[in-house]
């Protein structure tokens, strides 16, 4: 059950090494603080889960942020009602978001193509709007759901666990999670999720999903009921999104509606496409890149730019600072937009695909042993 092919095992080890050494290799980039690295890991989990649906089946969901939101709310409610331990919070978040995914997926998967995308978007927008308005007792609306000192926490009470004065912090089997503790927790979850995604990619189930992506009609003609397969993929990716949402609440115990906005769903789509749809590493790379830009580029101010360009003569320095300041700080969205355009124009298939092409170029000296490229089907 836990065996992997040699290639997959190597990539799992490589990923584990990369993720666990993040505090070291991110330091030169100025991103090696736990709060940001947690986000890197969590959004990578989200994107890997999304890729199981989009990358394997080709169904483009525009509503996955809803599951993140549901996971967050469930986790915070578990903190409020049951215990500050993170395990039940994560388990409940996965279960509840899985149930939602089952219902939403059951309806949405009746349609394909853009009709499916709009159906998922509509369900997610309904969740968002309701969380914002009518469900305020459950979600605390605009303020966001917060912990309070007088929350019941029945299980904790049963075992006589108290947290002293002030707001309690989430614990893992009794130990408080500090900054790095939170990071390593999310990192380990990311590695586990990556392993699950590898197993799915390599399994007959993943094969069937890819068959559905390339030609669903043909799959059905071979006597294959595709519905349970796509639904299973939808539920699995919804559960992983819920887990990512729970982790967001674990590392910072509050939940707000903004996590369910459609722009968040759009973000995960962009992460996946940017990195490379249907590849194992692609979504992770895309998620890290976007989160890096979001957090680092937006924090650069004109003082830092002045320092950076201080080696230039004064006139050119101020010119460079004026030009570049349009692209960082407040204007980091501009850089992000340009990056999307450039990557799609010059690297179709995402960054991982681009890296493969570069590797192939260096490999050209070796004689080609692979099969000739498949002939294009006639239209």
């Amino acid at each position, binding site marked *: 059950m836990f065996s992997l092919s040699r290639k997959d095992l190597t990539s799992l080890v490589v990923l584990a090494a990369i993720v666990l050494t993040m505090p070291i290799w991110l330091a030169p980039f100025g991103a090696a603080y736990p709060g940001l690295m947690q986000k890197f890991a969590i959004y990578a989990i989200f994107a890997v889960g999304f890729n199981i649906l989009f990358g394997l089946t080709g169904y*483009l969901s525009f509503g996955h942020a809803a599951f993140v939101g549901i996971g967050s709310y469930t986790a915070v409610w578990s903190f409020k009602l049951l215990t500050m331990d993170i395990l039940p919070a994560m388990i409940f978040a996965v279960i509840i978001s899985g149930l939602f995914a089952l219902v939403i997926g059951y309806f949405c998967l009746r349609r394909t193509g*853009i009709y499916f995308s709009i159906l998922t978007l509509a369900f997610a927008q309904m969740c968002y709007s309701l969380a914002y308005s009518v469900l305020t007792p459950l979600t605390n609306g605009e303020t966001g759901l917060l912990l309070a000192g007088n929350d019941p926490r029945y299980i904790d009470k049963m075992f006589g666990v108290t947290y002293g004065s002030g707001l309690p912090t989430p614990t893992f089997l009794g130990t408080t999670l500090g900054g790095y503790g939170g990071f390593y927790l999310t990192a380990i979850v990311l590695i586990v999720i990556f392993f699950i995604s590898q197993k799915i990619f390599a399994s007959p189930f993943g094969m069937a999903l890819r068959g559905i992506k390339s030609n669903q009609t043909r799959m059905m003609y071979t006597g294959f009921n595709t519905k349970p397969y796509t639904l299973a993929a939808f539920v699995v990716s919804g559960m992983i999104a819920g887990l990512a949402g729970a982790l967001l609440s674990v590392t910072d115990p509050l939940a707000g509606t903004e996590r369910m906005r459609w722009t968040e769903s759009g973000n995960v*789509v962009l992460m996946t496409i940017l990195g490379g749809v249907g590849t194992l590493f692609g979504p992770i790379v895309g998620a890290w890149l976007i989160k890096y830009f979001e957090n680092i580029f937006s924090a650069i101010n004109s003082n830092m730019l002045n320092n950076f360009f201080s080696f230039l003569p004064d006139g050119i320095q101020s010119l460079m600072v004026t030009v570049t300041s349009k692209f960082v700080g407040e204007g980091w*969205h501009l850089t992000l937009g340009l990056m999307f355009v450039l990557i*799609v124009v010059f690297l179709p298939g995402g960054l991982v695909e681009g890296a493969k092409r570069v590797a192939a170029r260096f490999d050209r000296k070796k004689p080609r042993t692979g099969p000739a490229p498949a002939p294009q089907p006639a239209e």
Partner: protein
Amino acid sequence: MTAMLAQLLNGLDKGGAYALIALGLTLVFGTLGVVNFAHGALFMLGCFCAVTFRYLITIETVTVDPTKLTPWGSPVEVRTPLVQNWFGDFGAVMVDYSVPISLILAVPTMLAIGIAMERGLIKHFYKRTHAEQILVTFGLAIVLQEVVKAFFGANPYPQPIPTDLRSAADIGILLGLEPRTLTYPWWRIIYLAFSLFVIGGVFAFLQFTTFGMVVRAGMADRETVGLMGIDIDRRFTIVFGLAAVVAGVAGVMYTPLLPPNYHLGMDFLVLSFVVVVVGGMGSLPGAVVAGFLLGILQSIASMTEIKSLIPGIDQVIIYLVAVIILLVLPRGLMGRRGVMES
């Protein structure tokens, strides 16, 4: 009953805006096969054409009038727009009517932007997957939005309604009701009429001109039209420009109703996609019908009577209706078979 009618009217002008945006979106999709996520940004650019025009037309000269003094003793500064100096009263009317007059600026600007966009970027994406089209146009939308933000800042720019049109029309009299029971702002009536006019214009253009005929033929079978020796790509470029103009003028006339800011495009984008899909991908009449339908339903659902009956319905009605329509009618109201389903 009158409240219902008032909401119906409200929905009609909101629906007009949805229909215009969705019309352009469908036009681009039907001809070029491109899912254009930058279409909302074009609407926003149209709004800022009006803002720019108003800025240009209200450039002022300051003269000091020494005969009058302000309460604290300094001479009164008289500010007059330059156009008023040049054209007298006509200039004052121009300033007053800046929003409708800015259509003159908006149409060529939007046409140029649309054609530049198609030739510069979209052209290279006909053969790519829809996911890549979405990503590149989404990136473009962000870039446009940020450029506007860099020039105009993040605050909304309220645009005035011309003074003569600020009052409300007494529609109730027409329907035989008591006077002043059902009134409706003139500008909203004008917006509705304007959107109907533009929609009618686009349909007439496609239906009754040779150019329109070629475009319709190209929508049905691009290759064959190309084989007839017609440069279909050039026509489609112009259609893209036309779609940009439709989105732009929809934006210009909407500015007095909703002060534009840089992220207006993104706010309208999702809704206009829902409208297009509910109407059915690739169907122009579908987009128009769905636009008005969803606009009206949204206004009616925001009535207090209905809100008290079903709490929260005003927030979700559009999406709820979209879900129901898509589950009952697989291709939306008037969608064609086999479009965007794989």
